[in-house]
């Protein structure tokens, strides 16, 4: 079966992971368009900057706790 390129979020997440900021990615998930200390703040900041529908998640340095292992 043909391989599909994964969505690499690692370099996008890292600059914001120390503060655990919420990040608003563009729809293609290859660019951070806004951040916020809360989910709501990230949504509001993204709306101010772009008409694009953002994809929200929280930046964390190490997700192993949330995915049960590595």
């Amino acid at each position, binding site marked *: 079966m043909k391989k599909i390129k994964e969505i690499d979020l690692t370099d996008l997440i890292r600059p914001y992971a120390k503060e655990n900021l919420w990040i608003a990615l563009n729809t293609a998930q290859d660019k951070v368009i806004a951040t916020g200390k809360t989910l709501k703040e990230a949504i509001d900041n993204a709306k101010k900057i772009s008409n694009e529908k953002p994809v929200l998640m929280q930046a964390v340095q190490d997700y192993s706790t949330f995915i049960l292992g*590595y």
Partner: protein
Amino acid sequence: MRVPYSLIPSSTPMGKEIISKVPLLKLGFKDYYINCLIDSGAAVSVMPAGFGEALGLEIKKGEPFIMKGIDNINIPSYIHGVNFFINKYKIKLKIAFSYSFNFPFGLLGREDFFDFFNVDFHQKEGFYEIKPS
């Protein structure tokens, strides 16, 4: 619908930094998407209460529900029926929103989600496939 896996920073139990490949799925709401981890090990879908508040829900007006977590920890939550889109499909899921569930993304569990969709994982090829059941 084929969806690429996502790569996120993680670590081994020995503390070595690695990159993990996980099945994140963006759930579409009116103005934004929320990334969720497809978690077939979870009975129900769970989200931090803040996700529901951003959707305009009054969390504590939902149906009270106690989830059992790892180590048998009780996680109080409130269930709401939430409409959203996955690509062209509009579905309504029962989601448990909790103030004690501080996750960086939502979790899509078996109830409802796995009734609506069949999911085939092709991890080696870097994608998973979602089809209506």
